[in-house]
């Protein structure tokens, strides 16, 4: 592959990567905003209490719990779903990068991308937090 050709390829990848990141942020933040409005309408008068960290009171502390909560249309569940999408935006970026390095036949960086994904998958194992 000629050097010029490779640069053009890289440029394309960078434009798509940039668009992917921006779209992820805009979509997830819109969901957070919608959830936030619903949450405020229903809970505006409730008294907040964040003085002491009480992990046992957290309602949406797993992906399964967030999806279950989403079915109830509660504002806080929608917010948490938006946050979950935001968290997965950079992860989607890694998946995309792996495919683009595969097309470029840069297998070293395909491997590096897979290593990062593995590390993140390990952190998905909730057991780490307990």
């Amino acid at each position, binding site marked *: 592959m000629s050097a010029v050709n490779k640069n053009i390829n890289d440029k394309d990848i960078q434009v798509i990567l940039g668009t992917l990141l921006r779209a992820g942020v805009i979509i997830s933040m819109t969901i957070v905003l919608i959830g936030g409005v619903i949450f405020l309408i229903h809970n505006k008068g409730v008294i907040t209490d964040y003085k002491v960290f009480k992990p046992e009171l957290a309602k949406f502390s797993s992906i399964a719990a967030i999806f279950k909560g989403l079915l109830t249309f509660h504002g806080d569940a929608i917010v948490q779903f938006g946050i979950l999408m935001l968290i997965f935006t950079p992860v989607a*970026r*890694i998946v995309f*990068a792996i495919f683009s390095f595969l097309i470029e036949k840069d297998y070293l960086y395909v491997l590096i991308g897979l290593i*990062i994904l593995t590390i*993140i998958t*390990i952190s998905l194992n909730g057991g780490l937090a307990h």
Partner: protein
Amino acid sequence: MSVLLFTIIVLLGAFLAGLLGSLTGLGGGVIIIPLLTLALGVDIHYAIGASIVSVIATSSGSAAAYVKEGITNIRIGMFLEIATTVGAICGAIVAVYLNANYIAIIFGCILIFSAIMTLKKKVDHTTLDDTDKWAKFFKLNGSYPDKGTDHQYAVKHVPAGFLMMLFAGTLSGLLGIGSGALKVIAMDNIMRLPFKVSTTTSNFMMGVTAAASAIVYLHRGQIDPGIAMPVCIGVLTGATVGSKVLLKAKTDKLKIVFAIVVTFLAIQMIYKGISGL
């Protein structure tokens, strides 16, 4: 305090944090955490969870622009992400077991360090000496466009830079911040990257690094929608406005004023942490 009032106060504070964080280059996380803990009495675990979410939002948003311009070195970014994500997860796990007072003290120290770093004059360490065998193996050397011409650069001291990134990632996971100051040290001073490349690449890495620790925080129950919602909306809006203003404003004086304010906040956090032990 009612949920509505709390949301409005946090929204305004987060907007200000995002604005100042982007104007000074310090990042929104380092300001929103003292604000939540000192002014509103929020437990630092919740503050960290909310802050890390805002770090993902701002870094992904601005990375989009930099990546398109072709300044970000995606290979360096991904290579170092191995170190930052491992560090971030370790940091986030340690944070779970660490007493809130110790976290506050460490946070204060890092805050002072970051404030000093924003004031220090940057020295250009770039080199064209492309003999580093790690840099060659991982294809890290590159070039970036500036005013129509391509600038070549070579990368040095890859293992040392990698170790520093492991440390930066750990602090990021422990404290819920982007730890940009440490990442820039690793890339500018150790690996000898040009400023433009190091700042944009560090920003590019922040999203994945923060995502790794955010997942641990989520499972631990540290991400509360009631706090995270106003924090991420506020910080992202502030940072977006800040990046627009940044092109026109002179930030030298602002940086000094800001460094003093941040140092003051840092001392308060350290004091609060020590007196709570």
